[in-house]
């Protein structure tokens, strides 16, 4: 009786100096990355839901990103890839 609608991967990229890549349909909107981000540049998009029915995380200020990787390390669902410009 439990079922989910199969969803294709949806990759969302934010790039300035550093780059964040979100595998959006894996996101469960738990808010941990938003809570952990030391620069407060992440939020849940409350206007829409992803393929799993959750409000997905978005980055609203990629210029503020320092590529510290905290968001990615705390994410339980391995949604986030962080690339540092070197």
């Amino acid at each position: 009786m439990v079922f989910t609608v199969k969803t294709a991967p949806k990759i969302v990229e934010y790039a300035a100096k550093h780059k964040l890549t979100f595998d959006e349909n894996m996101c469960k909107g738990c808010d941990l990355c938003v809570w952990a981000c030391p620069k407060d540049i992440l939020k849940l998009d409350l206007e829409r839901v992803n393929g799993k029915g959750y409000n997905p995380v978005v980055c609203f200020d990629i210029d503020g990103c320092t590529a510290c990787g905290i968001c990615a390390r705390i994410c339980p669902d391995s949604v986030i890839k962080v690339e540092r410009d070197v």
Partner: protein
Amino acid sequence: MSKIVYEKSKGLSDVQLSYCPGCTHGIIHKLIAESLVELDLLDRTIAISPVGCSVMAYDFFNCDGIQASHGRAPAVACGLKRTNPDKIVFTYQGDGDLAAIGTAEIIHAAHRGDNVTVIFVNNAIYGMTGGQMAPTTLIDMKTSTSPLGRNEAMMGKPLLVSELLAQIPSATYIERVASHDVPNLNKAKRAIKKAFEYQAAGKGFSMVEILGTCPIGWNMTPADAMGFVKDTMMPYFPLGVYKDEGGNA
């Protein structure tokens, strides 16, 4: 030129985790997967999943897996390891599985000094079945089977598993870590890596207890649950190395 700071571990499969939003099982899975990849042990590892929320952990690690009956994962690990001594065998167990129904098996795996690694996730509740009281549930904590809060007179004090297992002469390495922020995750990963290194070197029984969360069962947001680990769980379940005889073996 860019350098990857963090990306999904190759030690994890493509299957979406079955855990509730914000549950630390996912974070702990990542630490195990990263450790096995970094130590180049993944392709000779067998993961043994318990009964509980992580019952389907066999789907999530990129290695062979066995599903064990409730509490018996250490016995299954013993059987597998004794017939495959060159393989890496770990069990992944929750507090209901390991600290309630599986107490005989975990104690005797340690007692025999089985050369296996136990990852014990303590979130003070039975998550899978809907948030019942566990042996590790804190005093006064409300659960679906302690609706008025855990009462010490009727239900005792929470069980301290690392302290218990550290008393067993044949246990080699016992450490308690936490998963509520990145500095603690780094420590947890070091502990997990050490346990696997000891196993690879044939040093005997190792267990890493990891304090985790159950936001749904605790009726908290995931972020608040992280705070609960730090402020409420850690004072009762002190972090630290309870036994480390890996150096003398």
